[in-house]
C-alpha cells in the first residue's frame, strides 16, 4: 500500500524534529569534551585547582615585603606502588613575599630496577597557586633513577607580592608517579 501524502508529510515532519534533537545530542556530547579545555582555562585564570606553573619563570619581584611572613609547607606522597623514598629535606620555611628561596627534596629508588619518576605539584589553598612562582623545579623534568640510586633535587621559588593578605600558610604538595612506561 503506497503511503498517502499526509502520512508522508507527518513522517517527514517527525524526522525533521528528531534530526534537530540529534544535533543537540551530538553537540552536548561534544560539549562534554569541550569542558576539559574549558576547565583548564578556567582554572588557569582563577587558580582553582592548585596547579602551579609547569615551566620555569624568571624572578620578577620588584622588592621584598619584609612586613609580611608567609609559611610555606612541603608535603610529599607516592602514588600507589611507587617504591621510592621521597621527602622534603626541611618540612617548612618562612619567607617574605618577593624573597627568593631554595629548598631541597630527597629521592631514592628502592627498587632493583630503573624507574622514571615524575612529581606533580599542587598548592593549597588553590587560590594561592597563581601567586607561587617556581624559577627552578625538579618537577619540570622527569627523574630517572637507577636501582638504589638517590638524588637531592632542588626547588627555587618566590611568593608573589600580590598574595592576598588572608593567606598566611601555603602548602605545596608533590605526588610522585611512576612514568617509566610512558617515557620509554
Amino acid at each position: 500500500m503506497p503511503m498517502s501524502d499526509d502520512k508522508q508529510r507527518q513522517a517527514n515532519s517527525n524526522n525533521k524534529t528528531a534530526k534537530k534533537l540529534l544535533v543537540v545530542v551530538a553537540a552536548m556530547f561534544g560539549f562534554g569534551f569541550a569542558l576539559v579545555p574549558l576547565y583548564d582555562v578556567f582554572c588557569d585564570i582563577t587558580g582553582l585547582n592548585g596547579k602551579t606553573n609547569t615551566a620555569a619563570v624568571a624572578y620578577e619581584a620588584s622588592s621584598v615585603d619584609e612586613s609580611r611572613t608567609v609559611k610555606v609547607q612541603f608535603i610529599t606522597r607516592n602514588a600507589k606502588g611507587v617504591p621510592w623514598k621521597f621527602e622534603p629535606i626541611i618540612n617548612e620555611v618562612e619567607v617574605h613575599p618577593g624573597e627568593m628561596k631554595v629548598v631541597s627534596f630527597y629521592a631514592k629508588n628502592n627498587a632493583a630496577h630503573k624507574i622514571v619518576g615524575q612529581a606533580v605539584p599542587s598548592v593549597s589553598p588553590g587560590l594561592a597557586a597563581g601567586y607561587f612562582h617556581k624559577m627552578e623545579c625538579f618537577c619540570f623534568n622527569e627523574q630517572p633513577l637507577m636501582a638504589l640510586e638517590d638524588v637531592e633535587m632542588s626547588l627555587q621559588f618566590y611568593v608573589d607580592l600580590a598574595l592576598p593578605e588572608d593567606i598566611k600558610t601555603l602548602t605545596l604538595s608533590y605526588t610522585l608517579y611512576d612514568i617509566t612506561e610512558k617515557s620509554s
Partner: protein
Amino acid sequence: MTTDVIAQDSHDEHHDDHKMTGLKRWLYTTNHKDIGTLYLWFAFIMLLTGGALAMVIRAELFQPGLQFVEPDFFNQLTTVHGLIMVFGAIMPAFTGFANWMIPMMIGAPDMAMPRMNNWSFWILPFAFAILLSSFFMESGAPNFGWTFYAPLSTTYSNGSTAFFVFAVHIMGISSIMGAINIVVTIMNLRAPGMTYMKMPLFVWTFFITAYLLIAVMPVLAGVVTMLLTDTYFGTSFFDAAGGGDPVMFQHIFWFFGHPEVYIMILPAFGIVSTTIPAFSRKRLFGYSSMVYATSSIALLSFIVWAHHMFTTGMPLFGELFFMYCTMLIAVPTGVKVFNWVATMWKGALTFETPMLFSIAFVILFTIGGFSGLMLAMTPVDFQYHDTYFVVAHFHYVLVTGSLFSLYAGAYYWLPKWTGHMYNDALSKWHFWCSLISVNLLFFPMHFLGLAGMPRRIPDYALQFADFNKWVSIGGFAFGLSQLIFLAAVIKCIRGGEKAPAKPWDGAIGLEWTVASPAPYHTFSTPPPQKDIDNANQHEH
C-alpha cells in the same frame, strides 16, 4: 480530513501486530502500549534485583563487624544497587508511563517513532545483562560507587570498568532515543486543539524531562568515554601524572548528575499532579505556575552541580554561588508543594490507594527536600558530606518520592491498563506496610549520619548498632512489602472487578474517554474538541 487518513493507514498497518503471538509479539512490537508494558515490567524486575542487593547490604549492616560479605564485595553491592535503581528501575519505569499514557493523553494514535521505540526498549536488557554479568567474573562487578569517581574507576579499578562503561553507553543510547521519541510525539502528534497550555501537567513534566535527558545523557556518555580511554588507552583526562585533574571528573560527572536527579523526580511531580486533583475532585491549583515551576527547576539544575563537591577545596565564592543557587531551587519546589496542598484544600477527598501514595509522596518528598536544603548549606555540608544523612536524603527523595509516585500512578491507571480494578485490600496492605517500613528504614539514617556514620562502609562503630538493627528490619520489611504489589498487579491482570471506562469519578483526561482496558489502538482518529476541553477542566 487529513488526520483521519493518517490514522486509518497506521491502523491498517498495525493490524499485523495482532496476529503475532508469544515472544514475537513482544520482540517486534511497535505499539506504545506494548512497549510501555515492557518498560514497566523490566523496571519492576530491576527494582527487585536492586532491592535484593540492598537486602544483602542491610543484612551485613544488621550488626557491627563483618558477617556475610567481604568489604570489596560490599562495595560492588552498593555500586550496582545504585546503578540498577537509577538507570534500571526508576528511569525505565517513568519511560514506561510515558509510553503508555502520553499518546492517550494528547489524543495521538501512537508514539511518533514506533520502530525506534522498540529499539530503545530492547537494548536495555542487554545493558543490564552486561552490568550484572560482571558479578560472575574474576574481577567482580564495579566497586567504585555509582558515581564512579576517578581515580577509583581508572587507576584503582578492579577490571570491571570496560563492562561498566559499555553498559552505561547502552543505557544512555536507550534513554536518548526514548527522550527524542517523547519530544517528537508531544511536539508533532498533539490532537488538533490540544495546545501546549492545555496539555495535562503529566505530559508537561515528561516533555521537560525529555529535554533534560537529551541535554545531559550525552555528557554522561562523554565522561564514561574519557574514563574508558584513561583506563585502557593511556589518556590522562583525570590522571594528574599526565597533566589531568581528578577533580575535573567530578565537575563533568555532576554536570550530568544533578539534572539526572531531576530527571528522576519531575515525572513524579507529573503523576501526583494528576492523581491529587482526581481524588480531591478539584482542578489542579495553579496549573500554569506548575508548568513554570517545573521549567525553572529544570533550568536551575544546570547551575548547581558543584554542591556535591563542597569538600573538594573550592574557593569561597564558588561555594557561595553553588549554595545560593541550590537554595533557590527550593522556591519553585515550594510552589509545587503548596499547589498540591492547595488542590486538596476544601476538596471532597477520598482515600483510594493512589491518593494514599500521593499524600505520602507530598509529605515524605518534602522531608527529603528539606534535608536537601540542609545539605545545600556549605558550612554544615562539611559535617553531612558522605555520611548516612546523605543516604537518608536521597532515599526519601527517590523511594518515598519517585517510587511512591510510580505506585500512585500504577494503581491509578491499572484499571485502564488491565480492564480490572485492583484488589483494594491487597493494595492497602501494600501501602501501609510500605509506609511504615520505609520510614523505619530511612528515618533513623538521618541520625546515624548526623552522628557521623560514613556511607559505603561495611562496618561501623558500636554506638550505631541499635539504629542499624532497626534500619535493617525496616529494610527487610520494605523489601517484602513490594511483593504485595507484585501480587496485586498479577491478580489485577488475571481478573477482578470489571473496570468502567472511567473508574474514578474525579478523574480528568483523554485516557478516560476510551474503554477499559484501553483498546490496542486508541485515537486512530483524533478526539473531538469537546473531549479535549472536558479533559482539561483545570484550565477553566
